[in-house]
């Protein structure tokens, strides 16, 4: 938003701020070259003033953006959790915290604005000075009372014209200064976003067909979490369970294999030592992405070319048959909040999506968590059956699922 405001408001004004005054000076020159020179003369101190005020306020803008982001996050967070806050009777205490945060943002914003307004005042002053100087020069010139030999002969009409044009000289720059605050916020926002813009490019070299997963000396190291070194190998068709005490980094290990986390050291590749094929990893999420559309579209999100028959077969296979019968088949509409779907049904949509994607390696994050015993057993049976055709790595602490796996990798 801040960046957009900068692009929309600042960029075009900037161009006109450079060209505008020069055009005005050119237009004025034939009427009175002295007036034109006076205008240009006041431009220099003005530019210096702007630069000085500008550098000071940039740093303040960065601080303010951080505070604004924190405030925005804090508000959304606290309002989202209002039922919890009310439940514990913490309304007044959290209210005070919110007040402190909003007050802090107001304070920082004012300090940024103070410098922005100062640069504006510099501008206003020179613009007023320019008009005053031009007026006084023209007046004295018309009176014939200039304290120095008149450099040109001025009459009323050109003098009036020059005076009317004088405010125009500074107008584009006044608009620029008004937009300056947006520029600073925009730049600070761009800097804050920069780390996210550089996503790792996919490995350009086409990898060989997937023949299994090999993880060697994998070490993950983040604040508060360290995993490994891990060494394991999975066959092309396999079912392995990544187990371990809660918080030992199961999900992070899956994310590293999916290429979403950069490991501290070690390597992840196919059994023959090649890189994993690009787009070879499916992710069955605990809470899958749902987009507004039909059930079919949601199931085939990772396989847009799947035929209706394929989709139907997979949907039945993961146990969505009941839902299909109950709510009108594959054409059943789904909204983005997944209204009317239970947690287990969503989990199954995630699994169906992974199967339909045709990707050889499926990563499942806690596929049986929060399910009752019978649903969990059905999911385990399905994973077991799938392991005859895919390589599946689950992160779980469900003993039944661990027992069903060929191998347990304990963290």
């Amino acid at each position: 938003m801040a960046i957009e405001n900068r692009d929309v408001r600042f960029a075009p004004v900037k161009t006109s701020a450079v060209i505008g005054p020069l055009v005005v000076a050119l237009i004025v020159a034939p009427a009175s070259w002295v007036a034109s020179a006076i205008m240009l003369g006041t431009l220099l101190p003005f530019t210096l003033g702007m630069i000085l005020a500008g550098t000071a306020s940039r740093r303040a803008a960065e601080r303010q953006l951080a505070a604004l982001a924190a405030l925005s996050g804090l508000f959304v967070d606290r309002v989202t959790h209002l039922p919890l806050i009310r439940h514990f009777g913490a309304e007044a205490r959290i209210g005070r915290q919110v007040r402190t945060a909003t007050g802090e943002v107001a304070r920082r914003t004012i300090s940024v604005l103070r410098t922005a307004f100062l640069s504006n005042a510099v501008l206003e002053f020179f613009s007023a000075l320019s008009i005053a100087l031009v007026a006084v020069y023209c007046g004295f010139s018309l009176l014939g009372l200039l304290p120095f030999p008149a450099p040109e002969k001025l009459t009323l009409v050109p003098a009036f014209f020059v005076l009317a044009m004088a405010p125009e000289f500074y107008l584009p720059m006044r608009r620029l200064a008004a937009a300056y605050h947006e520029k600073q916020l925009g730049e600070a926002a761009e800097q804050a976003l920069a780390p996210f813009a550089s996503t790792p490019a996919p490995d350009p070299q086409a990898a060989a067909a997937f023949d299994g997963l090999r993880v060697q000396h994998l070490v993950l190291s983040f604040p508060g979490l360290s995993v490994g070194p891990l060494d394991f190998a999975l066959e092309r068709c396999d079912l392995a369970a990544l187990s371990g005490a809660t918080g030992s980094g199961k999900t992070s290990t899956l994310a590293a294999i999916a290429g979403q986390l950069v490991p501290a050291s070690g390597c992840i590749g196919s059994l023959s030592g090649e890189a994993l094929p690009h787009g070879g990893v499916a992710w069955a999420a605990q809470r899958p992405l749902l987009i507004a559309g039909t059930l079919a579209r949601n199931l085939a999100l990772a396989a847009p070319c799947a035929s209706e028959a394929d989709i139907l077969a997979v949907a039945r296979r993961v146990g969505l048959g009941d839902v299909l019968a109950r709510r009108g088949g594959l054409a059943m509409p789904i909204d983005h909040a997944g209204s009317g779907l239970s947690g287990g049904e969503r989990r199954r949509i995630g699994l169906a999506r992974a199967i339909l994607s045709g990707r050889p390696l499926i990563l499942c994050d806690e596929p049986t968590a929060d399910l009752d015993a019978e649903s969990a057993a059905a999911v385990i049976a399905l994973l077991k059956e799938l392991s005859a055709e895919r390589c599946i790595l689950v992160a779980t602490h469900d003993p039944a699922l661990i027992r069903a796996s060929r191998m347990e990798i304990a963290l």
Partner: protein
Amino acid sequence: MSAHLPTGAEPLPDLLAAAGVARRQLFLASLCSSFAAIAAIGLLAVSGWFLTSAALAGSAGLAAAAAFNYLVPSAAIRLLAIVRTLSRYGERLLSHKVALEGMAQLRGSLFDKLAAQDSRHAPDTSPGEASTRLIDDVEALEDLVIRQPARQAAIVSALVSLALVAFGGGRALVFLSVVMAALPVLFRRISERLTRGPAEEAAAALGHLRIRYVELAGCRAEIAAYGLADEALVELEPIALRLDKARADLFRAEALQGALLSIYGGAAVAGILLLARESAPMVALAMLATVSAVEAMGGLSRSLLRRASLDAGLRRIAALNALDGCLHEPVIAAPSPLTLGTRRFSAGARVALTGPSGSGKTRILLSLAGMQPSSAPLRIGEAPLEGLSPEHLKSRFALSPQDAPMLIGTVADNLRLARPGVTESDMWAALKVAQLDRRIARSEAGLDTPVDEGGGLLSGGERKRLSIARALLAGRPWLMLDEPSEGLDAATEAALVESLRGWLDRTGNGLILVSHRKVPLALCEEEVEVAGLSQASSHVANAGTRKDSGARKDADTG
């Protein structure tokens, strides 16, 4: 000021009062603004008059030129330049300060009012919507306050311009008065046709876009794995396109408006030139004053319109502001028995709620916690749940919800939520019962370990235990746990259940448990089948001993 606002502006004064907008400072800002406007007009008008008089004196010969008093006007011109600069700086700083501080206050007070509502009937505020109301709408109000001094100055400067035009003669004055009076009306007509639609559309599209974006951000891992970023963007695209189109329409309309205003101003100046019958310097003064007057009126009309387009947002905040924000005194409750359907449990009982997924076990916990309307016949003492105030429920129950929600902040922030006056040693004791003390002690930051919406450095199971520790700290007679051992490995689960048993024995508190796992269920002495509860209140609830609970977990609703 309110007299100049369009009709339907009622919410504003109340909101400003709630914001505690400092009236004195706002008045000073208006004063500065008026000075600045008058100085700007004066600068042009005096210059024009000075030039013309100087030219006349100059052409009348050297004697006239020498007699011409140039000191006063040239000093006035310089003075006006300085006054304008200083007063505009003052206006900007003061009006922003007043507005920003006032809005910070308003946000806090709106939050308090929302917080004072009963969760069972409170408007369901989604995260995206909350940020729209509390951030965007209040920002719009802030803008309004910031511009208020400028609006007053515009009126002052229009009046001053009229006074100056009077030097150009009565006819010019009447003409300009009519021209200026007609301007806001014309401007409003044109703008309503041109800008109102796009402005409202843009605001609606922006709110919509924000809500959807928050939702999509929750599915990051999957979007990254399948490269679904494009799909996600497609989801956002129609909304973004709608927003872009509305904005483009708005900019076009505004540009057209600006052009029309310039033409109007030109026509007004031409009219003055034709009508003014006074001396040339006076006509020059009148013409330059006219330019300022039309500009001021244009600015005023524009800002009145902007005010109108903000009405929807103002009404939204006013609706929040109208909520009763009075916090009720906390109630100290004596331990009282709890009736679920027909089963009555004395204080200190340990009860498991059973039933297949989706039968409403969690719903019962949330009802008792005062977080949702009740769906089953529940009574505390003899009083039905619906009739009890939220304060009564808060004083009796402490819930650790299934999804273990955490405030963004630190471990300590989340534990302090439980009740006022929690000490560090209280925290460590609760963490020890929840089997989380060693994990937190290992972490470098200790109790200041950060927690955020995704759990921060804590895993799912750790969040769960932190949420249990929080419920323990609340010190209420009934502890309610929803799937307390979900996400835990078997060893941690066993240790947690043992230490919870010890805590319950020590404190004598009651327990209401929902779990589909066997180990925690061993904590409970009694059990209630939920399906029977909510279906028929008159019927004897289908309750039994825990032995046959496994057989009853049949219907798989997923």
